[in-house]
C-alpha cells in the first residue's frame, strides 16, 4: 500500500522520476473524471428534477430591508412595498419557471412591462432586477450592488415603490429560488407633485430597465409547475450542484498542488535532471485558479 502510494506521489526510478499523478495521462484522467461528474449532475437534474437544487433562506422582507438599507446608505428615502408590484414580480418569476427561461424578456416576447400592465400598475418609471441560485440575502444584494446596472435600479432616486417576488420552482431540472424586484413610481405620485392641474397625463411612460448584461444564461431544459409563495420561504435540504462541483474541483486542485510540492522537493533533494515542465509555474497557475474557485460567488443575476 505504502509502496503504491509513493509511486503516485514521489518521483523515483519506477515512475521515471516524475510522480505518477503529474503525468499527462493521469492529469487527463482527472479532467475526464470532472467532466463525467458534471454530466452525472446534469443527468440527475434531467431524470429526477428536483433532487438537486439550491436551498435558499431569502425572503421578500429580507430583500426589502437590504434594498432600503442600501438606499439609506446612499442618502435616498426607503421604497414602499407595493402589493401590485409584488404581484407583478411574482407573476414574472412564475412565468420564468412555467416557460422555462431566464431573461428580462420571455422567448415569446413578453417584456417586464407587460407584467406591470397585467396587475394594472400604472407607472411613470419602472425597472426590474432578477437573481437566481443565491442562498442568502446578503450575497444576493452584494451580487446586485456589484453590477452597475442593477445597482442603478436599487439606488435610483426616481423610484418610490417596490415589489418583490421570491418564488421556488424547478428550472432546468434544478430546484432553485428566483428573486424578482419590480421598481416603480405610480403615475398618481407624479400627478400629485405637478403644480398645474391642467397638465395632461403622461401617456407614454418612461421605462427604466436594467441593461441586459453578459451574466450567466443557463441552459434550461425541463419545466415543472411552480410551488410558489411570495413573502414566505420554505427551507429545504437539496444537494447543491455548485457545492458538489466546488468540492470535487478543490480536491483535484489541492491534490495536484500537494503532489507538485512533493515532486519538486524530492527532485531538488536528489538533484535529478529531467525533461518536464516547471513545477513552480504549475503551482502558481493552479493556486490562482484554486483561489478563484474558493471565492466563486453563489448565484446569478440578470
Amino acid at each position, binding site marked *: 500500500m505504502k509502496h503504491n502510494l509513493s509511486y503516485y506521489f514521489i518521483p523515483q526510478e519506477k515512475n521515471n522520476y516524475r510522480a505518477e499523478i503529474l503525468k*499527462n495521462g493521469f*492529469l*487527463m484522467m*482527472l*479532467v475526464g473524471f*470532472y*467532466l463525467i461528474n*458534471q454530466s452525472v449532475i446534469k443527468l440527475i437534474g434531467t431524470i429526477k428534477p428536483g433532487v438537486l437544487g439550491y436551498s435558499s433562506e431569502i425572503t421578500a422582507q429580507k430583500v426589502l430591508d437590504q434594498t432600503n438599507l442600501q438606499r439609506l446608505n446612499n442618502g435616498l428615502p426607503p421604497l414602499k412595498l407595493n402589493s401590485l408590484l409584488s404581484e407583478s414580480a411574482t407573476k414574472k418569476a412564475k412565468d420564468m419557471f412555467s416557460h422555462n427561461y431566464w431573461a428580462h424578456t420571455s422567448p415569446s416576447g413578453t417584456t417586464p412591462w407587460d407584467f406591470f400592465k397585467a396587475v394594472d400598475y400604472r407607472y411613470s418609471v419602472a425597472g426590474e432586477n432578477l437573481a437566481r441560485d443565491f442562498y442568502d440575502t446578503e450575497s444576493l444584494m452584494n451580487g446586485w450592488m*456589484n*453590477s*452597475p446596472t442593477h445597482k442603478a435600479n436599487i439606488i435610483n432616486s426616481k423610484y418610490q415603490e417596490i415589489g418583490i417576488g421570491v418564488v421556488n420552482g424547478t428550472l432546468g431540472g434544478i430546484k432553485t429560488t428566483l428573486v424578482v424586484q419590480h421598481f416603480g413610481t405610480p403615475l398618481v405620485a407624479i400627478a400629485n407633485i405637478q403644480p398645474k392641474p391642467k397638465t395632461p397625463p403622461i401617456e407614454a411612460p418612461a421605462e427604466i430597465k436594467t441593461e441586459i*448584461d*453578459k*451574466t*450567466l444564461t443557463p441552459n434550461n431544459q425541463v419545466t415543472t409547475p411552480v410551488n410558489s409563495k411570495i413573502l414566505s420561504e420554505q427551507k429545504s435540504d437539496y444537494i447543491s*450542484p*455548485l457545492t458538489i*462541483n*466546488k468540492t470535487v*474541483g478543490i480536491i*483535484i*486542485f489541492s491534490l*495536484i498542488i500537494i503532489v507538485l510540492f512533493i515532486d*519538486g522537493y524530492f527532485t*531538488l533533494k536528489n538533484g535529478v535532471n529531467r*525533461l*518536464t*515542465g*516547471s513545477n*513552480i*509555474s*504549475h503551482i*502558481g*497557475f*493552479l493556486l*490562482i*485558479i484554486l*483561489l*478563484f*474557485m474558493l*471565492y*466563486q460567488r453563489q448565484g*446569478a443575476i440578470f
Partner: protein
Amino acid sequence: MKIIPKEIKQKPIEYMVLASIFLLGFLIYFFADVNSHEKRLVVYFMAASYFFWSIYHHYKRGDLSISIVVEYLIMALMGIVLLTVSFF
C-alpha cells in the same frame, strides 16, 4: 535566499513576467468591476498567457519538447475546464 529555487534565480525576469500575469488576473478578477462573462475571459487570458509563457520559457532554456507542451496544455485546460464549466 536559499528558499528561492534555482530555476527562478536563473531566469528572474521570465518568472517576474509570469507572476505579473497572475497578479493582473487576480486583481481584475477580484477587484475590477467585471461580470461573470468578463471573469471567464480573465481565466481564458491567464491560461493562454501561462501556456505561451511556458513555450517561450522552455524554448529559451533549450528543452522545449512535445511532452512539455502537452503538459502545459493539460494544466491550462484543467484550469479552464474545472473553473468555467460549472461556475460561469
